[in-house]
């Protein structure tokens, strides 16, 4: 087990190094830190002096080493637009995104598990067939379209819910939270439904197919033969054993939700990392763009590594062969 963890962590570090190399290459090729600092009215000689002083004329490898060292100290460069360290800008925006992802995952879990189980137990019932049909339609609707339709119905036509922004937030130890005010919660409803809609069909199908497979196994048949109660068989013998693949796929999919926050946040003008990222692209704010790349990259790598290690813990065959 120890060797497996070491191998996974080493791999995660290598991936992070590659991401940082990509990030640095972008910065090196596209961004111009001198422009970020001085603007246009400074002479060429002064610029050159500044370049030397900042170490921009050093070899690529040296600059990269310095970049990694700074990154490890939590310095990901300076945002050209916000005139603040890029990491500060991101950490200020992160709570919004994380809360959105959290509520969406909650919706996904609470909705997909009961429906998935029901559809697996009664595969022929009308409701199950209906959900399967709806889920393939759901997969085909892009998340931004769902979001727009929700806005049109609930915000523009019915005026029930707000259509953009986070509403009133409460600051708890530097974490801007929308959980503790009615207004903030109201603002959360539409974006989190829109975001969860992208994963919901996938999860329902996954839980259904895994559970149907488990219900076909010998030990479940044996349990029926023993005359156990049906609820015991479904939930204790059946569902418990479907959880394993669901958790592994689910863990990775929840990481992927971060990618879709960019789309959701754009529609709802949600002041999170994804919205900030697009603004950074529009403003050509290279430092912020690179910082986002590295922070989100780290987030993905950490989530995937943890999921892999949990999977290794519960399923020994993975850690022995070392590959999926």
């Amino acid at each position, binding site marked *: 087990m120890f060797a497996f963890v070491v191998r996974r962590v080493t791999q995660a570090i290598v991936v992070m190094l590659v991401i940082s190399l990509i990030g640095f290459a972008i910065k090196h090729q596209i961004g111009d830190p001198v422009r970020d600092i001085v603007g246009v009215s400074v002479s060429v000689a002064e610029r050159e002096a500044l370049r030397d002083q900042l170490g921009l004329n050093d070899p690529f490898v040296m600059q990269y080493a310095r970049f990694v060292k700074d990154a490890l100290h939590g310095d990901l460069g300076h945002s050209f637009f916000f005139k603040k360290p890029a990491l500060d800008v991101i950490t200020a925006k992160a709570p919004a995104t994380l809360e959105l992802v959290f509520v969406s995952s909650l919706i996904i879990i609470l909705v997909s598990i009961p429906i998935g189980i029901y559809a697996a137990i009664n595969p022929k019932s009308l409701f199950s067939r209906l959900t399967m049909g709806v889920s393939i339609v759901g997969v085909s609707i*892009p998340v931004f379209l769902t979001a727009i339709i929700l806005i049109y119905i609930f915000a523009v036509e019915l005026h029930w819910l707000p259509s953009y922004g986070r509403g009133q937030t409460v600051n708890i130890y530097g974490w801007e939270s929308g959980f503790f005010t009615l207004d903030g919660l109201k603002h959360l409803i539409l974006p989190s439904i829109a975001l969860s809609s992208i994963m919901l069909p996938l999860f329902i199908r996954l839980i259904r197919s895994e559970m149907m497979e488990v219900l076909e196994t010998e030990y479940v048949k044996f349990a029926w033969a023993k005359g156990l109660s049906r609820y015991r068989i479904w939930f204790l013998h059946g569902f418990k054993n479907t959880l394993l693949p669901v958790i592994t796929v689910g863990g990775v999919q929840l990481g*992927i939700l971060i990618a879709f926050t960019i789309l959701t946040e754009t529609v709802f003008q949600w002041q999170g990392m994804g919205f900030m990222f697009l603004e950074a692209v529009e403003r050509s704010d290279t430092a912020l763009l690179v910082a986002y790349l590295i922070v989100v990259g780290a987030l993905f790598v950490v989530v995937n590594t943890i999921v892999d290690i949990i999977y290794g813990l519960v399923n020994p065959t993975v850690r022995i062969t070392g590959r999926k």
Partner: protein
Amino acid sequence: MKKKWRRFKNSYFLYSFKRDWVAVASFIIFTMLVLLSLSSPLLAPYDPYDTSSIDVMDAEIPPSWMEGGEERFLFGTDIQGRDLLSTMFYGMRLSVFIGCGAVLLQAFIGILIGMISGYLGGKIDAFLMRIADVQLSFSTMMVAIIISAIFQVAFGVGRYEELAAPLLIVIIGLAEWPQYARTVRASVLREKSKEYVEAARVIGLSPRRIRWRHILPNTLSPVLVISTIQVANAVMSEAALSFLGLGMPITKPSLGSLINAGFEYIFSGSWWITLFPGILLVVFVLVVNLLGDWLRDVMNPKLYKG
């Protein structure tokens, strides 16, 4: 030719197709949509790229059956006064074109890498598949968004918009190749140990010939199956990128950029600019997905678990 046709007529493939009304309906709709989009210059009542025929005074006219609608614009007009129906046809042509181009590119990269990886094995295989794994774990959406963001910053907005269509093909192609590489590698590994490959080697054929003429054709049926679904994915990715403003510009709108443009006007009640392109996009992606599902069931029942 005639013989082939008869063989096709009696095949299980056609038989199962005719029995599945969902597949037949999707196929009909799919063909209609593709034909409509390909022949849009002939069929569309107006040319949305022709700036001389566009009048801003016509902007935001509702569909013809609504109050204030005009007969000449069946589905109304968009914010620039273009006929929405024509713009949708042209937009769909762009979406289909970009989607298919991107799938061709990713199939090319993916098959090449999958073949190398599966046939050579060893360290090269481990290395290439690690890259594919890592890239997949970031989700293709994220990779596509980040590559296009980098391209946009690197090229500048103006130049990016000029080159948007080919760039989008490259972006989506680069973002989604691992799917192909994995599929091809898996079936190459399966085929490699079969007897016909052994036989080919024994009679002294060159490795290259074995690889491209013997193994590759036998790996193509899973490739065909994922290709359909990949087209749907590519069209979705293109729409998402365009919606984010990282894709087709509004002067040459794809379905995604039309939805984006319409979204800003939804609060003033002009829902049709968003809704109609949206429905067209969803229908197209849906029928491609349904066809893909059906194809997967027919070609490879074992592969059912996605």
